């Protein structure tokens, strides 16, 4: 197999909780990302799903090196970028870009569109002012905006158009990898579909690699080749899109999938979703061993709370971290909770 573009090993990001003003004493840690490993091949889209607070955005910011990881290793394009600084980091940043969630907050309201999209080109000294202007207008056209709008301010655009500006900015310096952090969740469904189509088209045209983070499982499935499911700072399952959606193995993935409302009344009304009890526990004091055990219908005392399940390959290309993976799909409430059988 060819070398992956991005390879993340055992990535950790803990935020200290401190007490005291002058002498700050650490009294606890928020384990936002707690040992995450994955790789992304060139030209691939890796989707990351999970509920709020599961650490998916923190993970993305670590990969972008916007946050310094507490532990682990990030390999990008064959280079270890985990601890890069200064000029070296700057050089890597030319190939890593990000599209943010909120198209209202992620564009500087006091800069014109031309300046926003061209900023990265200026920072990385990619040509003269005239060249940059030409490139920016070209980019605006690529993302479906009018190049004449070069001199307008962000507030003159609708949410969908702003997100197109965000995409144009990310494309400006021809990055290899674009991390999209909930790029469509603030948009209306018809506009969301426009942006998804745009991202897919750009991937084909510019040979891009995406890490696509979202909480909407249907959106992630639509755009991703492979999908990772995160829960409380860990990846609990990873597989190709169709494999994961047709045969989920982890009980949490199953519950998530069964909870998505289906836009077809007959299907929606016939099925019985697996409704999880309670809320996601705090990442300050996550449950021992398997983080999902407190809400898991298949919890097995003496095993799930003692022995942490590792992310292992069960089927070709399908990794799961669970002692009692699901045998079949779809499952009903009843079978979901049935006495689990330990599989070797």
């Amino acid at each position, binding site marked *: 197999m060819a070398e992956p573009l991005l390879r993340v090993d055992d990535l950790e990001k803990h935020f200290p909780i401190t007490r005291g003003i002058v002498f700050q004493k650490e009294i606890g840690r928020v384990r936002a990302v707690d040992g995450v490993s994955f790789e992304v091949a060139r030209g691939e889209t890796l989707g990351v799903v999970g*509920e*709020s607070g599961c650490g998916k955005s923190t993970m993305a910011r670590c990969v972008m090196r916007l946050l310094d990881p507490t532990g682990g290793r990030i390999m990008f394009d064959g280079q270890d970028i985990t601890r890069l600084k200064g000029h070296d980091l700057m050089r890597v940043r030319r190939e890593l870009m990000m599209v943010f969630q909120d198209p209202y907050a992620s564009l500087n309201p006091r800069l014109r569109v031309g300046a926003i999209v061209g900023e990265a080109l200026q920072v990385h000294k990619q040509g003269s002012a005239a060249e940059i202007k030409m490139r920016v207008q070209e980019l605006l056209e690529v993302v479906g905006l009018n190049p004449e709008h070069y001199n307008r301010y962000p507030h003159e655009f*609708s*949410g*969908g*158009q702003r997100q197109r500006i965000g995409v144009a900015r990310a494309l400006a310096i021809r990055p290899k990898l674009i991390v999209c952090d909930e790029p469509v969740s603030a948009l*209306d*469904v*018809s*506009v*969301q*579909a*426009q942006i*998804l*189509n745009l991202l*897919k088209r750009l991937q084909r045209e510019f040979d891009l690699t995406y890490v696509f983070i979202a*909480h*909407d*499982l*249907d*959106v992630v*499935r*639509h*755009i991703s080749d492979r999908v990772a499911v995160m829960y409380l700072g860990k990846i609990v399952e990873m597989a190709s899109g169709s494999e994961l959606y047709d045969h989920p193995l982890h009980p949490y993935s199953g*519950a*998530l999938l*069964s*909870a*998505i*409302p*289906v*836009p*077809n*009344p007959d*299907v*929606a*009304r016939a099925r019985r*979703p697996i*409704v*999880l009890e309670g*809320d*996601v526990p705090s990442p300050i004091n996550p449950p021992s061993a398997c983080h999902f055990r407190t809400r898991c219908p298949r919890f097995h005392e003496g095993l799930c709370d003692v022995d942490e399940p590792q992310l292992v390959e069960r089927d070709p290309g399908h990794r799961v971290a669970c002692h009692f993976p699901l045998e079949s799909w779809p499952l009903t409430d009843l079978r979901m909770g049935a006495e689990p059988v330990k599989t070797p």
Partner: protein
Amino acid sequence: MPLLDVRDLTTHFRTEDGVVRAVDGVSFSVEKGKTLAIVGESGCGKSVTCMSIMGLNPRVNTEISGEAIFNDRDLLKLRQSELRKVRGSEISMIFQDPMTSLNPVQTIGAQLREAVMLHGQSTKRQASSRAIEMLKAVSIPRAETRLDDYPHQFSGGMRQRVMIAMALINNPDLLIADEPTTALDVTTQAQILKLMNELQRDFGSAIILVTHDLGVVAETADEVLVMYAGKAAERGGYADIFYRPEHPYTWGLLGSLPRLAQHGGELRPIPGSPPSLLRPPSGCRFRVRCSYAMDVCGAEQPPLDPVAEGSSHLVACHLEPGHRRAESERLVGEMMAEVR
């Protein structure tokens, strides 16, 4: 006779830039114990419709006309003092954001008791026991001990449960839920939808559910009203809207759903974005984004007419009915076949 009958509701806001026609002649009715879903994109007037019925729009610079007959009274003609008696007892409302719709400096118990005591003669003790009963009904664990907790001590899903408990505490005939699950995660959303379903069965309340999520509509609605730019585009039973939709906007909404284009298919989004309600397009407001637009669409507003003689399925579109039906079958048949 329907529980709530809204006729020709119009809400205009006067602003410095001109009149915003947020809701422009919308009619619908809600039957007892049934769920009406109002669907549309942001800015289509679905929330303003609910706020107008409840009399919650700012009085200044707002013009409301039409009728909203509820239990033999026209809500739009009631005085504030009369409306205040209706709100929270006969009609109650759940808002989108459970973080901001509870008072952060009052305990949950105080807020629940207030709802009971404002609308009845109960003592504080009776109100407290009613509050505990409702918290149990919405499955909050250890309900007795949580009355003295403040909203920040509850998670998002729990807060939305408290909101639902508060809304249902006086057994309202009608519950208006404005995007009740939009701020929640899917697993929490599933909990809340299940809960609302059970409570509707037990208490027999009618529900107006405002949402942009067609999946939620498919799960819960009996009737559906599709709104676009302040007007009703299409109205009908849930099966009409999902299996036989006749408005190009409804097709566009369905075509934008990734779930309905699973097998590598391209999404078929609606081009452009919704128009400004300050200067909406002439004639049919959807025509600028509609791939079927004809000359007549710019000249005349299409009336909301039954798709066939005597049908309860209404659509506002100039397309020739036969052509519309054929397109509907072609587009929607493909999409629905992909859903599992």
